[in-house]
């Protein structure tokens, strides 16, 4: 788990400068989707395409979890027929997809975001409201200028 150690090292050696929140996109209803708009705070940190890919993949995962179709109806009817006791022994499809999402986010963090000093928090830990991206500054370097510049941008607002 050396890559995990890298993430831990990121947290220990770097310092938190800012957090960006990607909000939900409700244009298609109440299904879980996040906005793919690229936040300005990340402009200097990561390429737009990488970010958009991550968010689009997450959106696809959530769409798959919430898809209404044959399998979800079957699951619902089976659950109703067993007086919902079947959920005590069976994992719902949503939970399976959530596990996939957690793995995907960990992988993205290790491969793409941690090397750039960023960290994505799984939306499930924020009540599925936001994707929280933490921006870290390297404590050793004087790169706190970019941190404070993003910070002073918000103060100027």
């Amino acid at each position, binding site marked *: 788990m050396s890559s995990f150690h890298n993430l831990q090292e990121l947290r220990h050696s770097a310092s938190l400068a800012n957090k960006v929140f990607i909000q939900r996109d409700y*244009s298609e209803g109440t299904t879980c989707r996040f906005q793919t708009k690229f936040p300005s705070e990340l402009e200097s940190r990561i390429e737009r395409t990488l970010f958009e890919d991550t968010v689009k993949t997450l959106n696809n995962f959530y769409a798959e979890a919430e898809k209404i179709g044959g399998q979800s109806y079957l699951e619902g009817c089976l659950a109703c027929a067993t007086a919902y006791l079947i959920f005590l022994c069976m994992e719902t499809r949503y*939970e399976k997809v959530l596990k996939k999402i957690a793995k995907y986010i960990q992988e993205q963090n290790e491969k793409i975001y941690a090397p750039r000093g960023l960290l994505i928090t799984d939306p499930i830990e924020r009540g599925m*409201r936001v994707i929280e991206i933490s921006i870290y500054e390297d404590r050793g370097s004087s790169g706190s200028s970019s941190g404070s510049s993003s910070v002073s941008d918000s103060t100027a607002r």
Partner: protein
Amino acid sequence: MKNCEYQQIDPRALSVSPLSAQNPAETKAQRPRRKWEAFPGKNRFFCDGRLILARQNGVLPLTLGLIVVTSGLFFAFDCPFLVEHLTVCIPVIGGLLFLFVVASLLRTSFTDPGILPRATAEEAADIERQIDTSGSSTYRPPPRTKEILINQQVVKLKYCFTCKMFRPPRTSHCSLCDNCVERFDHHCPWVGNCVGKRNYRYFYSFIISLSFLTSFIFGCVVTHITLRKWGSSGLDSSLCTVVELVICFFSIWSILGLSGFHTYLVASNLTTNEDIKGSWSSKRGAEESGNPYSYSNILTNCCVTLCGPMPPSLIDRRGFLAPDEGIPVASASEIELPPFTPKSEANMCTQSTKDVLERMLRSSDFHGLCPSGTPKTSPLVPEVPGAPPAAKPPVSSGCSRQLAHGAVVDPCPPFSKSIRRDSLHSINPAFRLASPSPTLSRSVLVVGDGPDVGFPPQH
């Protein structure tokens, strides 16, 4: 003056550090607390967080009692006669119905209805930054709304002051449970819980099966009485039968009415809340009712509401709290205070925080430096102790305060919570007084990021 502020903080740091050394030992000796023990809403938890109920659940035992007593009397007094004279299927059907009703009721009562966890401090601060509100000196700023487009229909999202977030569409804040609940239908006292996204199907199956059960018992009791009258034997145990008759008769009307009403709601993909408020009925546009969530098909509406995928619980009830965090979210209140710090120090703490933050904002000398030990797992502990959400940026100000007294997690959050919940509102306007802006009660935010939308694709 700066030294003064830092000196105010230092004694607390000094008093904290030996105790923080003691604390880990204490917490190791104590069992790790689960998140449900620090849950901010008015709920009760059972089975170590597996079951959740509203705090005001006085009527649930009554509901259970009525069902059990009526069914019990039915099985005891009517079934023997009916088995003898009619068929053995009657108690079997009755038994199955009874089990289904009780299972649905318990599932409805003890399932998390779709409670949204409260926003973390950073999230609340981020939202505050995005809102342009006036610098009024009232405690509560004017209600904030955000307009978004859902399926090309304008929907207003309201800001929840308790949970510090814009409520997603169809979400409402239940005042009895003090939680925002997704797809909030209503708070049912009979069931002792809110009815929301996650337990609506259980509630619906409860009332439908209960209608069947009451009708079944009513029919059987009437048959029993009729057969007995025609038969020769006298009416012994007539009191129990009469009791059953009365209970069933009166409950049938209300239960059948409720079932019918909820069937209508399911077919048109509405919630009780929306129906009562008339959210969509006033808009007589091209669509039949202007409900942006409704599919064009009644069957699809039913299937989606009742057989749709089961969303997970968003409040992690059984997760463990990290030993150094008192609460998982910043806006919680009414949790027991750590024993070593009196409240007067907390007052000082909040005041000095405010002063320090003001100075920090004016000076250009702040870095986003945080002690490394604070974030443990990926959900970062809110490091903004008592920081007003309007402070820009709150994270680094809070962190620079932590820097002032060394690498110790600021113990302010646990004991200044109850002050902070009110002070967050009062501090906010105070900060905004410096830069008056025109009164804007809402900011119109049109989110039309996706491709052109019609009705959601039906797979």
